[in-house]
């Protein structure tokens, strides 16, 4: 008999609609005339799911007794007897009650499949065995019910049931997933947006991995050699130099941008072992790559660009990251460099990133301003060509004994002179012209081996040779110098336009600007120093430096000191800059001062804004306090005046009532003044907490003395761990939160105060079924003197929640607001559990 097909609806979290999707599929199959039954479906009292069960045949479940309770499980026998074409089985990862036919439901499903029944099932991503650790690290909850990956992987079809975290949380808030009394710390923690996003990503990636596997299979079956980039796979080429770390971090950032990016670092070693790589540095980089979640590879290859590209194609890379060359300009004579070659050969499938780094062209900085002076090597080269060249040429020409004629001899000497001008500038060329003409005279014009010239035509030729040699040499020299100047000016103007643009747009931080300066001039460190006056010590306003280089503390100690203003200076270390570079440096310095100014102004503006906000709060306080102090005072005054007036005979009852009103008014004043004092203590930072181990079942009832009896329902399990709190602060905090909840809750619905533990935290949840608070106002209700909406009966100054949060935070806890599923507000007080 052919094995049945397994189709799985995979979800990222409870409530995304897996069961619903499975049941819809059941209905569709039934309509198409397939014999489809429900073998086991759990609707969790979710009405929409329950409705979907109508019209589908349900196989009765098997009831089992275990430890005094009754459980119902899928009746595998009954399903096998019924032998439908398709069976719907919910929750593949479920563990059966001991005494069942199999320990796990997936084993039941295997039996159904073996009997030729197609099965449609559901599973949540967190139940996959291999993801146990990851899920635990995300949610803090260890999954006990798991299903081997192999079972899910073998499924003929996997369908992802996806829902954005926001939508899922909305469903949660509407009470569509759980009832409010079911929501405890663990569950609410599970449904944090961060968690849901991570779980969703996990599910998407897991499915994407499956797609990847299919893709690889397909490619090898169909001999597809082009890369099919289903997600970013980034290859980093390492030379073994210190810039590799920068490249690795950069690649890791690129990888993070797309979901599931992967980093593969590769070091290509030559087969002859001749390499400049430092094994120690490579070891460090290997660790770094692995820490960032990538892999490290060694490849042997003599042609580095092609070895790199072969590796990249072999692993289906989509991007290659390389550092810009560390080579100096003249080294490009030997070839265009690895980066350029890789970029040219990479083809359309691979993007090549060339990353600049601290080591790029180190020590070169701007093209040096060369007046008459060229580099030492070029001058030596020029003189060699100009002096030794003619000698060698003479030896050669006299030796081979071939008579080329004087004209050709002269042309050959002229070539040497031009070459000398190209290498060494004007002087070697002049020397070469003079020396060449002497040699020509001595060896090649009759009479030979004499410095006299017999034929006057030869004399003219020699003079013309000398004149041409000198003019060509000067033109060549001038051109070379102009080219160099142009390159330098271009570099300067690029830097200046970068400076002008980025500083005007205000997007550059001081550190970034200094770092750019350091790179441009090839320095080791750059610091912007300032001081109050001429005698004050220098302080560092900002600095940049290559790893391990501390900025210079005083301008006097720097290799380059560039004053910005009387009390500000740039101090650079690493090398002495030529005077020509100082012009650009001055521009940098001025911009750095502007950026610093801008940063300071911005932070002052922020401070001013904060002060204004503080003022607004104080004004609000005055208004609110005067109203809230006055009301109970007016009550007290009215009652006392009534009692004191001699013209009325008060009954015992009236007298008692007036006295009660006085007492209540006094209590309210006391409460208000207490909150005000607490608030000012919190503001001045004088709240001290004495953290001790305490039990919530002891502290919380004490906090409920201020609210009417019956208005609060307590649910604090005895198994709850002790918490590290300041009892006094906790009591005040809880009292304020509960008081607020009671105030807003409908009269006949008690406020639920429950506590539960998750990981190393204990959460107290105060759940009201009042009007609730919209998301955008949730943060505001914790600000002092805020009341949400119209204040109902007995409302006081909006200080309670501000004080409660302040106290919670003073003892290392937290207080946040959430929606109550089905409407209302839930305050969550997070506390540290004792060890």
């Amino acid at each position, binding site marked *: 008999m052919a094995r049945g097909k397994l189709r799985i609806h995979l979800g990222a979290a409870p409530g995304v609609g897996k069961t619903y999707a499975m049941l819809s599929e059941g209905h569709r199959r039934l309509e198409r005339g397939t014999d489809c039954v429900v073998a086991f479906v759990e609707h969790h009292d979710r009405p929409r799911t329950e409705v979907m069960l109508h019209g589908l045949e349900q196989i009765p479940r098997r009831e089992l007794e275990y430890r005094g309770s009754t459980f119902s499980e899928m009746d595998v026998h009954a399903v096998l007897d019924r032998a439908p074409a398709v069976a719907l089985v919910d929750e593949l990862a479920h563990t059966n009650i001991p005494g069942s036919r199999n320990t796990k439901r997936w084993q039941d499903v295997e039996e159904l499949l073996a009997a030729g029944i197609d099965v449609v099932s559901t599973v949540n991503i967190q139940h996959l065995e291999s993801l146990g650790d990851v899920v635990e690290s995300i949610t803090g909850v260890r999954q006990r019910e798991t299903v081997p990956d192999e079972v899910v992987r073998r499924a003929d079809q996997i369908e992802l049931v996806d829902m954005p975290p926001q939508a899922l949380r909305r469903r949660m808030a509407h009470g569509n997933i759980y009832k409010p009394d079911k929501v405890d710390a663990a569950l609410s923690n599970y449904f944090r947006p961060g968690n849901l996003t991570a779980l969703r990503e996990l599910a998407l990636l897991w499915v994407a991995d499956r797609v990847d596997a299919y893709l690889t299979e397909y490619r090898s079956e169909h001999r597809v050699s082009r890369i099919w980039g289903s997600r970013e796979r980034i290859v980093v080429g390492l030379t073994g130099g210190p810039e590799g770390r920068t490249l690795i971090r950069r690649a890791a950032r690129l990888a993070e941008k797309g979901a599931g990016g992967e980093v593969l670092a590769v070091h290509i070693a030559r087969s002859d072992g001749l390499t400049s790589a430092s094994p120690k540095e490579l070891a460090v980089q290997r660790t770094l790559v692995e820490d960032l979640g990538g892999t490290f590879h060694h490849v042997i290859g003599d042609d580095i660009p092609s070895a790199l590209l072969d590796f990249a194609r072999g692993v289906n890379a989509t991007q290659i990251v390389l550092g810009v060359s560390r080579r100096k300009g003249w080294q490009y004579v030997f070839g265009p460099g690895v980066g350029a070659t890789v970029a040219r050969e990479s083809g359309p499938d691979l993007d090549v990133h060339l990353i600049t780094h601290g080591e790029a062209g180190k020590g070169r900085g701007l093209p040096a301003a060369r007046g008459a002076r060229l580099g030492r090597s070029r001058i030596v080269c020029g003189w060699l060509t100009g002096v030794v060249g003619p000698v060698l040429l003479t030896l050669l020409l006299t030796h081979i004994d071939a008579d080329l004629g004087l004209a050709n001899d002269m042309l050959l000497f002229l070539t040497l002179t031009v070459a000398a001008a190209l290498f060494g500038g004007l002087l070697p060329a002049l020397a070469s012209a003079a020396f060449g003409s002497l040699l020509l005279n001595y060896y090649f014009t009759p009479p030979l081996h004499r410095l006299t010239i017999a034929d006057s035509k030869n004399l003219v030729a020699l003079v013309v040779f000398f004149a041409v040699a000198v003019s060509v040499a000067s033109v060549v020299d001038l051109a070379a110098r102009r080219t160099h100047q142009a390159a330098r000016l271009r570099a300067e103007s690029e830097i200046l336009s970068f400076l002008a643009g980025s500083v005007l747009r205000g997007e550059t931080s001081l550190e970034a600007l200094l770092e750019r300066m350091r790179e441009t001039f090839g320095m080791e460190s750059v610091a912007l120093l300032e001081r109050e006056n001429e005698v004050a010590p220098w302080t560092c306003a900002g600095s940049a430096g290559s790893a391990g280089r501390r900025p210079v503390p005083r301008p006097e100690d720097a290799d380059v000191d560039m004053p910005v203003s009387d009390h500000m200076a740039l101090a650079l270390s690493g090398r002495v800059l030529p005077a020509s570079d100082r012009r650009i440096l001055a521009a940098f310095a001025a911009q750095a001062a502007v950026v610093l100014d801008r940063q300071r102004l911005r932070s002052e503006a922020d401070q001013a804004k904060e002060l204004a906000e503080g003022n607004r709060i104080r004004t609000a306080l005055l208004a609110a306090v005067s*109203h809230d102090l006055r009301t109970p005072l007016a*009550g007290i005054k*009215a*009652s006392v005046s*009534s009692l004191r007036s001699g*013209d009325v005979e008060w009954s015992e009852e009236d007298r008692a009532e007036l006295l009660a009103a006085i007492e209540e008014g006094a209590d309210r004043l006391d409460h208000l003044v207490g909150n005000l004092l607490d608030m000012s203590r919190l503001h001045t930072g004088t709240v001290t907490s004495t953290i001790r181990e305490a039990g919530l079942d002891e502290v919380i009832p004490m906090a409920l003395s201020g609210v009417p009896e019956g208005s609060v329902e307590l649910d604090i399990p005895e198994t709850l761990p002790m918490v590290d709190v300041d009892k006094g602060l906790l009591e005040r905090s809880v009292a304020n939160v509960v008081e607020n909840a009671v105030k807003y809750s409908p009269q006949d619905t008690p406020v639920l105060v429950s506590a539960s533990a998750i990981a190393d935290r204990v959460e107290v949840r105060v759940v009201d079924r009042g009007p609730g608070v919209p998301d955008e106002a949730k943060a505001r209700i914790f600000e002092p003197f805020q009341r949400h909406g119209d204040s109902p*009966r*007995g409302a006081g100054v909006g200080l309670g929640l501000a004080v409660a949060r302040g106290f919670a935070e003073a003892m290392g806890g937290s207080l946040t607001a959430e929606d109550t599923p089905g409407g209302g507000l839930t305050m969550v007080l997070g506390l540290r559990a004792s060890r």
Partner: protein
Amino acid sequence: MTRVLVVEDDPQLVRALVLSLRARRYGVDPAPDGVTALRLAAARRPDVVGMGHRFGT
């Protein structure tokens, strides 16, 4: 009998006012909010209205 309409949302103050006015033989109608006050003003035709300031509704 002179009728007084007391418009005030603070229960303690209302209680004190109602007690002392009744002791002086005034007819008192307390109203905790503006809507009730308008309804009572129409129905009971008070001679005096005492009202706190800063009302929402």
